[in-house]
């Protein structure tokens, strides 16, 4: 707690000191580029909503942990209550070492090491704060898929005088247009069905990954904090704690392309171009030792030639053949086991039930 107090005092003082002396003036244009590191989790600009992190409109002068509708960690709320208000100084300190500045806060971001980056991103954020320049660089609020969804029906078949369609039994709905199908039908199968034309190299992928993926998944796909691990884990499937990754577990490469294109980066889905996704997929192959050449180029042409090492180790559900199901006997009702039951394991021994005061990590997963 004493750490908070010190920080709080510094923050309060900072409010009294003219802002200019607090840090070097940053460059908002450069800051926009730095902000790409934040974009996975934060939105700013017109219509910005809370994502993994709170929206950052009007961040200057905001009490820490106070954006409406965002569920902060207890630590962030407490920091606000202790008096931390975001200004150039407190932001600079927070962004340098988020975990140190507010112990226990939930922003899983390593921080901006370079002072210039911090000053620039703060200058950029200032342009979205009340009383400063208008939000000219505002991001569009809706992603491409949402825009596609908003396109209104070309023909309103529900009007009484419109010609009734002839399809089906009830003649409800209308025919989908080719553009509509192209906008939504982006799925890919192991045989390559659905792959768009395009290409990308390991080296290109590394760059994109560093910018758009590494904040969560780590530079080498090792997974920061509790974000998913994407690489390694080979030969662990029989181990006590298997590490299931693209290289160690996934059967098909098409799944990587399909999933990254539909759902990643987390909180900014559908933002990568088809070529970007080829490049990132190539980089993930490289991180998983499936390819070893940095100049390797993955493309719609050579895609189906690549096989992941664990492909052969999946088989169809055969639970019915397990002894306990196969027998289907009348279950025993009396004296089913010899001797009284002995307790062999207790939850109390490794109690990780929530609200126990401890935020300790248990075993297992729900994925």
């Amino acid at each position, binding site marked *: 707690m004493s750490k908070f107090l010190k920080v709080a005092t510094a923050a309060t003082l900072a409010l009294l000191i003219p802002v200019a002396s607090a840090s070097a003036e940053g460059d908002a244009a450069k800051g926009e580029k730095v902000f790409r590191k934040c974009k996975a989790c934060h939105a700013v600009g017109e219509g910005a909503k809370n994502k993994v992190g709170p929206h950052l409109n009007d961040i200057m002068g905001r009490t820490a942990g106070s954006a409406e509708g965002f569920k902060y960690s207890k630590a962030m709320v407490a920091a606000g209550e202790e008096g931390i208000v975001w200004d150039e100084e407190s932001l600079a300190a927070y962004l340098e070492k988020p975990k140190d500045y507010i112990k226990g806060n939930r922003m899983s971001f390593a921080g901006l090491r370079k002072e210039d980056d911090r000053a620039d991103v703060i200058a950029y954020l200032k342009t979205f704060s009340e009383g400063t320049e208008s939000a000219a660089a505002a991001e569009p609020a809706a992603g491409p898929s949402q825009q596609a969804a908003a396109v209104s029906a070309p023909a309103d078949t*529900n009007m009484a005088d419109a010609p009734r369609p002839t399809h*089906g039994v009830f003649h*409800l*709905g209308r025919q989908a247009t080719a553009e509509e199908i192209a906008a939504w039908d982006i799925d890919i199968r192991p045989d390559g069905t659905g792959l768009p034309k395009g290409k990308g190299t390991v080296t290109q992928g590394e760059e994109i990954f560093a910018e758009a993926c590494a904040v969560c998944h780590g530079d080498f796909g090792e997974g920061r904090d509790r974000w998913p691990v994407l690489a390694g884990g080979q030969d662990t499937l029989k181990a006590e704690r298997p590490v299931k990754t693209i290289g160690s577990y996934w059967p098909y490469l098409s799944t990587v392309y399909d999933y990254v294109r539909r759902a990643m980066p987390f909180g900014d889905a559908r933002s990568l171009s088809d070529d970007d996704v080829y490049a990132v997929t190539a980089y993930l192959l490289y991180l998983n030792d499936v390819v070893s050449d940095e100049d390797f180029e993955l493309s719609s042409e050579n895609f189906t030639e690549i096989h992941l090492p664990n492909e052969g180790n999946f088989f169809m*559900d055969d639970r019915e053949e397990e002894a306990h199901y196969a027998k289907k006997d009348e279950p025993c009702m009396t004296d089913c086991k010899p001797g009284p*039951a002995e307790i062999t394991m*207790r939850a109390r021994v490794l109690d990780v039930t929530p609200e126990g*005061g*401890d935020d300790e990590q248990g075993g297992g997963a*729900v994925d």
Partner: protein
Amino acid sequence: MSSLSGRKKSIPQLAERTSGVANPSRRQLLTTGLAVGAGAAMAGLQARPAAAAGDPAITEVQDWNRYLGDGVDARPYGTPSQYEEHVVRRNVAWLTADPVSSVNFTPLHELDGIITPNGLCFERHHAGIADVDPAKHRLMIDGLVDTPLVFTMEDLKRFPRENKVYFLECAANSGMEWRGAQLNGCQFTHGMVHCVVYTGVKLRTILEEAGVKTSGKWLLAEGADASAMSRSIPMEKALDDCMVAFKMNGEALRPEQGYPLRLVVPGWEGNMWVKWLRRLEVGDKPWHHREETSKYTDLLANGKARRFTWVMDVKSVITNPSPQAPVTHGRGPLVISGLAWSGNGTVKRVDVSIDGGRNWKTARIDGPSLDKALHRFYLDIDWDGSELLLQSRAMDEHGYVQPTKNELRLARGENSIYHNNGIQTWYVKADGVVENVEVS
């Protein structure tokens, strides 16, 4: 480390609660119940002989008996009593990286009957709760069909409807217990299940509207959220009992359950019940997407993995007493209550053991017994105050019997994550405190 066994609260609060004056949270009651020794707890909670002056709950005029309550305009959408505030979904922070891609659990120990109230149905989403404007929501059918179609919500509501009660269980329910007893409370060990009545259109009806080609053997269902959740479903199932639902328990789906439209895949793992359903594609092969390769495949001890393990096996759990719902009334009549279900159909029988599986008694199933729905069972006993090792074992209409956890481990190892339907044991101590344990 302690949670339910935390010894923080003192006896007076317990006394207050039982006299109906104060409103401590359930948790306080719990901690209290657990904190105090057997004798004191029982004394506080058992029906006490009326003092000479009588029970103040009777002899004193209560506020609600004198003053007027809220008018009909005060609660246009009603909420539970303030005394039920503790009955909420809870999450386990350490399970996932971020609450936006995470899970919370139904408080099974606070519920009865077979229907889960909408606001308590557990949540699992992969990119947060999508906030979909129904006016802009479309359902597209494409792929191997005669006519690819687009429906508005209004279109969908013009097809003939049906109402069906189904349970939905996440395949990872009880997944944290593979390596042994870990979480103290059936909310956490079994709370990724719920059961509601759905209103919607048979998936078959909608597919027939587009006309499935004979080569169409698989269906890809896809959501409109930021994870664009996608799963492959065999056509046989799609044409059998699947539904496209827009209502749950009579009202619109809750946003966290896929408003305005979700797929219902009765008896099969919850992940397939795609929420915010926006597209159905007919194909000739499965897609092997992330949720059916990286996830929702069951890794066995030999390093090989089962895929397409869709059916949720026969399962049951005693919800009361359980670690979050200890016995607070001492010896005498005790209602043992629980839930049973099977993805194969109805539950035919539930047996309960109080001695850790040595001897079993058949419980009474009460309320409707519906295909692929939760079943409520009771065993009414006269508790002599001795320690109990409670277990329940369900059997479905096809004769599948719920296995023990050790039988499952023997067949699969401990790394499967999914489909843990093993028999649960609760250890009820003489003071009524209950703990999650495993027995020989």
